[in-house]
């Protein structure tokens, strides 16, 4: 039985949401939900694998906005408050469900209470610093950590300026180094968005590999002799690994994929929407707008109502079956691939980290089981990281991938369409203005206040460039917030530019902006001085 490699990659990213100007802010819940449902369950799974000495290999990309938010003191304090509120609600639920009518829900109420208490305990165990947990697992040699662009900018559409792309990449690497203490070997390009030529910036940043969608490889400048099952050398030594279609579909697809199984927890049935408003009011938005609380009592069940009660034990059993099914399919695939390839195939399976636990509640359990199964000797699937693969496989086909993304339709249209095209003239103009500002002040003796204002202007520009805002505009979810974020950051940039050019910097205003957009403490505006 010939062996093949399986490289599982989780891309962890959330937009930078940090609002000290409000006592609480709803969109900060995005981070809190991801910590509760995704990151801490993932850490729990990795802790169990370490405890059982399972020799898995897994890759996790951490975006700089997420890294910054996980380390932010204000958000850490607010998260603990959020967790205490969840625990309070779960306790209340254990009492409410003691009545005869609601008694079927009582064991689940206790399940959630224990879950949230455990989450708080884990958070406290790592002193509120989840990055420490990831670093710990990196240090065991099992978890490979990689970076992403500074604010998850959609690089192909920022590429009207090489400086814009260079700064997104270099600052992504710098932020990673600052917080994690070592250099990232690879990068997850935001939205898996590649364009020919970006590899030169990656090489400058000493990055060894990145990922493209399958058609990026298949439509490369020369025919890829091993399909998407071997990386391409972009010509400068930087490697492009292609996403495998089938393994993606098995997990992503809501119809064919595992998450839609009837025994898994139903995302869309949450007590925040189902219980009496008077009862749930203290735990929803502004005491009257219904939101998800994270307590859900039903399973997917199927298309017919009523939904059936969720059973965690049965769901775990199903996750284990699906993990085995996933590995079986990879085994079959590898056996077929080995008949056609001149080297050991590598199946690259990247996913959004937030899929596991948030949308697919049992995802972390499935992932843990996949890693356990592949560690045994009775299968031909070996988990590797891309660094592992490149260490053993030295010769690679040289070709340039085609421009591509992993978004809808596979190209740039999700980030450039009738809902969001209006942002690009502003983003491009602000980039040009920032570079001109740096150029105009190049070589001049600046005061500390001017330097602070210049650096803050660069932060404002970078935050406006995040791909999250055009994504949300197209998805039609929280479009008002996305619109406001882009215009706010551009307004802040305009304000700072105006203050600098008029030499009229209000330190109080500048300090306020530094507090609100408290990211990239080591940024250097001189990086916007255009380079050849």
């Amino acid at each position, binding site marked *: 039985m010939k062996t093949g490699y399986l490289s599982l990659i989780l891309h962890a990213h959330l937009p930078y949401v940090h609002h000290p100007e409000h006592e609480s802010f709803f969109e900060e819940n995005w981070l809190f939900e991801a910590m509760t449902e995704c990151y801490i369950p993932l850490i729990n799974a990795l802790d169990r694998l370490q405890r059982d000495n399972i020799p898995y290999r897994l890759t996790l990309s951490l975006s700089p906005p997420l890294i910054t938010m996980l380390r932010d003191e204000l958000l850490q304090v607010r998260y603990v408050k959020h967790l205490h509120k969840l625990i309070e609600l779960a306790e209340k639920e254990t009492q409410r469900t003691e009545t005869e009518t609601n008694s079927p829900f009582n064991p689940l109420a206790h399940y959630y209470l224990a879950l949230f208490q455990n989450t708080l305990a884990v958070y406290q165990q790592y002193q509120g610093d989840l990055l420490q947990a990831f670093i710990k697992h990196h240090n065991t040699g099992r978890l490979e950590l990689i970076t992403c662009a500074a604010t998850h900018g959609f690089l192909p559409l920022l590429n009207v300026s090489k400086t814009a792309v260079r700064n997104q990449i270099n600052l992504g690497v710098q932020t990673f180094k600052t917080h994690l203490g070592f250099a990232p070997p690879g990068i997850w390009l935001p939205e898996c968005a590649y364009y020919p030529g970006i590899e030169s910036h990656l090489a400058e940043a000493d990055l060894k590999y990145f990922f493209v969608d399958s058609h990026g490889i298949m439509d490369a400048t020369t025919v*890829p002799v091993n*399909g998407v099952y071997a990386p391409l050398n972009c010509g400068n030594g930087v490697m492009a690994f292609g996403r495998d279609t089938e393994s*993606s579909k098995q997990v992503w697809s809501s119809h064919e994929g595992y998450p839609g199984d009837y025994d898994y927890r139903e995302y869309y049935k949450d007590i925040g929407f189902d219980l009496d408003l008077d009862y749930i009011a203290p735990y929803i938005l502004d005491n009257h707008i219904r939101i998800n609380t994270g307590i859900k009592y039903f399973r997917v069940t199927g298309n017919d109502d009523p939904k059936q009660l969720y059973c965690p034990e049965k769901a775990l059993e199903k996750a284990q079956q699906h993990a085995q099914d996933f590995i079986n399919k990879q085994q079959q695939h590898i056996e077929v691939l080995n008949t056609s390839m001149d080297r050991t195939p590598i199946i690259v399976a990247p996913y959004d980290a937030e899929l596991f636990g948030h949308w697919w509640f049992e995802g972390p359990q499935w992932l843990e089981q996949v890693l356990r199964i592949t560690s045994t000797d009775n299968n031909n699937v070996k988990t590797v990281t891309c660094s592992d693969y490149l260490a053993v496989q030295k010769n690679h086909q040289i070709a340039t991938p085609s421009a591509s993304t992993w978004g809808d339709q596979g190209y740039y249209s999700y980030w450039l369409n009738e809902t969001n095209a209006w942002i690009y003239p502003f983003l491009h103009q602000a980039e040009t203005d920032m570079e001109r500002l740096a150029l105009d002040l190049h070589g001049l003796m600046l005061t500390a206040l001017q330097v602070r204002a210049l650096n803050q202007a660069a932060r404002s520009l970078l935050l406006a460039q995040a791909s999250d805002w055009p994504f949300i505009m197209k998805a039609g979810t929280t479009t008002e917030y996305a619109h406001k974020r882009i215009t706010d950051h551009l307004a802040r940039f305009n304000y700072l530019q105006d203050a600098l050019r008029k030499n009229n910097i209000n330190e109080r205003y500048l300090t306020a902006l530094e507090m609100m957009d408290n990211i990239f403490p080591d940024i250097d505006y001189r990086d916007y001085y255009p380079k050849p």
Partner: protein
Amino acid sequence: MTFSHLKHDQTIQLSTPELFEISHTISRDFAPKLSPAKPDAETKASTLSQELLNISEMISADFAPKITATTSHLMLLPIDPEHIHAYWHLIDDNESTTHHRNDASALNLRIYSSNPSLDNTDFTQWIDVPIETINSEPSFQCAIDHTYNAYCGSLGQQEADKNFIPVAHSKEMQFPFTKTRVAISEDMPSLLAPQSSLPTLHVFNKSASGQHHNHS
């Protein structure tokens, strides 16, 4: 409640309401515009009531003054193998441009293409796209022939005598997409080709926040 920052002046303490007010003021007065119109000091001083301020904001938003860019320009952006996006700014720097803006239907977006691999590097091929919405939406998406791999554009008027009078030019855009799937299917073992089309990421309703998917 006050907040700390790595590098800010520790002697300055700001409360939550103060931070909110500063954020609100900057967003109001420095909202991005292609031709930024910043309220002058006199206007600021005169805004004695919230109502006046609201009116001022509305006017600033709805009646933004003219573009401050020093030259007209045109930008081309790739979307996918069949489409590009164009946006532009025109300034009224001569009679010709003014005439064009008053007669939007007269303007054409001319997109030139070349393919160096076919020894066609001179942008001698082009298509003309009539622009009829220039005053309301200075951007456009159009279909292109993907056999070419470099594009540039001009915005201008096609005169009756066939002369094209440009008023804005774009830089050359390298088209980043390739289309070789036909060749692959012939040259590559079918086992190595993707088995089926990828599911889109959005079938699972992925977004930065799931809240608005629920019970909508």
